[in-house]
């Protein structure tokens, strides 16, 4: 038992696969138990997995960028330095003594591969007592997966055999050609156009949605740098594409007058600081959203397309989109309806730091029922946020600005914040979305109302 085979565990709730982002060890390295070994990226988070056993790294079964299924062996650790080959050894069976009548078709020796059928391995044959146990099924083709080349774009381009041949003949790497054909196929014309340097077709078809977008054509390779499109970035791309191709987005923009909210925050800020919390507007917005969601439960649903059911979530997990060095992440404030504003503020701080440091667990990065995205200082006039699949609504919050506003027939300076909300029109009708938006605005323009509904 020198070799320990480490299988990719389920590192999130129901994660089925993980992408190897980086190996922190190499074959031959000596590792202590729990030494950082590999970074694995699931569709929920990138996690560092430590060595489950002390020993010497014997085999790395997946290359960087490759995707391993949960349960597949990703690394083999030689625990005591006596690594032996992985193939199963079959103990030598006893040979039959002397000749015996052989019926036609009576195969006396086991058939190759018959050891796959463990229980029946000895059935019928004489074998005798205590015959050797059948060898276990051979290990999965390890060398094949270990030597799997890094495929930056993972998915293979779709093309007919004839087009593939044309691409080979013209020296065109099909993965670099943007497809324009039906079902996301790269067509013969695409290949010819690419080879002739013509602009590549611009529009991937809808059905190509689940595939990552094709890379752009090379113009001057010497002045270009290519980096692996892996990890969070690729996950983001895939999720965005999925969302865009399933939900019927529509966006609603309205302004919100924030002077009362500013005043309220100003009054509460010192108290919050005493509690060690830096109070931003975001916790109020979270509360406003929760209040509006309670009035419009359809905005807190998700569409289960596999069963054609609309799932009403009777809990309020609010995703807070956060820009991180690795890319966009959406940590989740769970049960926001049951938390105080102070509590929410604290949680947002904690999650934001964790997201930037990359230390959040998969659970902390998944499960939101509605998402808020702070568009910040460079949020522009308005935006068209993309839903966080499978949610049906998202709120984009723009920076609060001083603007001329008309109040009681006078133009005065007021603090105005624009809200850009996107909805899934399959589920949310226009007037419902609008009503939801105005409820949020009302909470924010009259923040006292939040106290009326405080639990």
């Amino acid at each position, binding site marked *: 038992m020198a070799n320990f085979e480490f299988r990719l565990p389920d590192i999130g709730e129901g994660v089925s696969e993980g992408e190897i982002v980086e190996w922190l060890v190499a074959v031959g390295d000596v590792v202590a138990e729990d030494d950082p070994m590999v970074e694995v990226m699931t569709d929920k988070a990138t996690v560092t997995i430590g060595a489950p056993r002390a020993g010497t790294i014997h085999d790395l079964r997946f290359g960087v960028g490759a995707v391993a299924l949960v349960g597949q062996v990703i690394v083999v650790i030689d625990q005591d330095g006596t690594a032996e080959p992985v193939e199963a050894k079959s103990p030598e069976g006893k040979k039959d003594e002397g*000749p015996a009548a*052989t019926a036609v078709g009576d195969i006396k020796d086991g058939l190759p591969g018959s050891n796959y059928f463990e229980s029946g391995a000895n059935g019928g044959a004489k074998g005798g007592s205590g015959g050797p146990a059948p060898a276990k099924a051979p290990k999965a083709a390890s060398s094949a997966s270990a030597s799997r080349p890094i495929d930056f774009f993972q998915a293979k381009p779709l093309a007919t055999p004839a087009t593939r041949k044309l691409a080979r003949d013209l020296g065109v790497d099909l993965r670099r050609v943007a497809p324009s054909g039906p079902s996301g196929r790269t067509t013969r014309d695409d290949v010819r156009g690419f080879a002739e340097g013509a602009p590549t077709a611009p529009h991937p078809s809808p059905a190509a949605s689940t595939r990552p977008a094709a890379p752009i054509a090379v113009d001057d390779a010497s002045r270009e740098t290519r980096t692996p499109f892996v990890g969070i970035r690729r996950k983001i791309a895939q999720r965005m594409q999925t969302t865009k191709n399933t939900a019927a987005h529509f966006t609603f923009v309205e302004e919100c007058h924030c002077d009362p909210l500013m005043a309220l925050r100003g009054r509460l800020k010192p108290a919050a600081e005493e509690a060690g919390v830096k109070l931003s507007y975001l916790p109020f917005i979270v509360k406003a959203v929760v209040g509006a969601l309670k009035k419009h439960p359809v905005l807190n649903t998700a569409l289960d397309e596999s069963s054609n059911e609309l799932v009403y979530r009777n809990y309020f997990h609010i995703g807070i989109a956060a820009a991180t060095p690795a890319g966009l992440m959406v940590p989740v404030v769970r049960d926001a309806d049951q938390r105080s504003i102070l509590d929410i503020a604290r949680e947002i701080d904690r999650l934001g730091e964790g997201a930037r440091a990359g230390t959040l667990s998969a659970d902390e990065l998944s499960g939101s029922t509605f998402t808020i995205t702070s568009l910040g200082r460079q949020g522009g006039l308005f935006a068209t946020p993309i839903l966080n699949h499978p949610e049906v609504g998202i709120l984009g919050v723009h920076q609060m600005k001083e603007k001329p506003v008309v109040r009681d027939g006078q133009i005065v300076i007021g603090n105005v914040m624009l809200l850009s909300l996107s909805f899934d029109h399959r589920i949310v009708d226009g007037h419902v979305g609008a009503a939801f938006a105005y409820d949020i605005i009302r909470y924010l323009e009259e923040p006292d109302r939040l106290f009326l509904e405080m639990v």
Partner: protein
Amino acid sequence: MQTEHQVVPIRTPDNDSDGVTSVIRPDGSLNPETDPKLPLETVLDLYRSMVRTRVIDTQLVRLQRQGRIGFHIGSLGEEACILGSAAAMRPNDWIMPCYREFGALLYRGFPLQAYLDNMYGNADDIVMGRQMPDHYTGKAYRFGSVSSPIGTQITQAVGIAWAARYKGNDEVVSVYFGEGATSSNEFHTGLNFAGVMKAPVIFLCRNNRWAISVPSEKQTASVTFAEKGVAYGIPGVRVDGNDILATWKVVRECVEKSAAGAGPFLIEMLTYRVGGHSTSDDPRAYRVQDEVEQWRRTDPIQRMRTHLEGRGAWDEARDEAYKQEVETELKACITAAENKPKPELGTMFDDVFQHRPWHLEEQCEALLAGPRPKSEH
């Protein structure tokens, strides 16, 4: 169409006169009424052919038990009906075998070495190792090719006989099958076609009582197998199949009549399969040893030997010497057969058609270029 010696056609429980022709009496003397009165040298020749067949049979079973050949399907106890009928066929006549008649093939002069090469499926095997052992062929000896499915040779025999007559050739076709085959489509169709076409066919039913494990009583509700000819307008004849002289006589008479235009005959040869169905079979699972012992007492070789010794034409010393002679020849053939290579790989693709079409050329190239199996049996 009746013949004077045939007794059947119908035998019922009320009328159990079995009408079975026999010649050799238990004391070795011959029934003068049925004795074909063959020259002594012919009688000795018939006897030796049976002994030779049995020596070979016995040795082949041994080889199979040692794992040196894969299979043998023998004729232990049935030598008289096989050799007697084969000897009764004229040189120009055809023999369509079942699969128990290697003795008949050898009787026709087929080389023993060629037979052993077939048993080993080696490069010199006439059929190039394409069939199991005992699936021989011998066109030069007017002997058909052995097929495993039951009864298929019966309708073919009718076609051969019809063709021979159409070509104006004086040739009769004999076709062997066990009593089990009388249940097959081909038996009924073949007899019916032959009856309608008046084809010169001698249907030789070896009633050896067992079709693998099924006794003859379970094969038919008819009292005899010979009477099955009646429905097709074919005379049915019964003969003591453990009496080589009786078999010779009955078959020869039918051949002559058939050649003269009398059409087909069905001959039921009563015998007993002393061994298993083949080396793959152990008959102790389904029949009692007493029955076997009872039939051993009517052993065709012993009966003939009693007759010959009574005539002073044979004795123990000559018997031993002859067996020794056969064994020596046989062992030389075995050694030679074992030392011959397997058929060349490419021969697998020959004779599917007269010429290899493109797809077989392609597959043959793939075979020759490809990997070889890990085990060679």
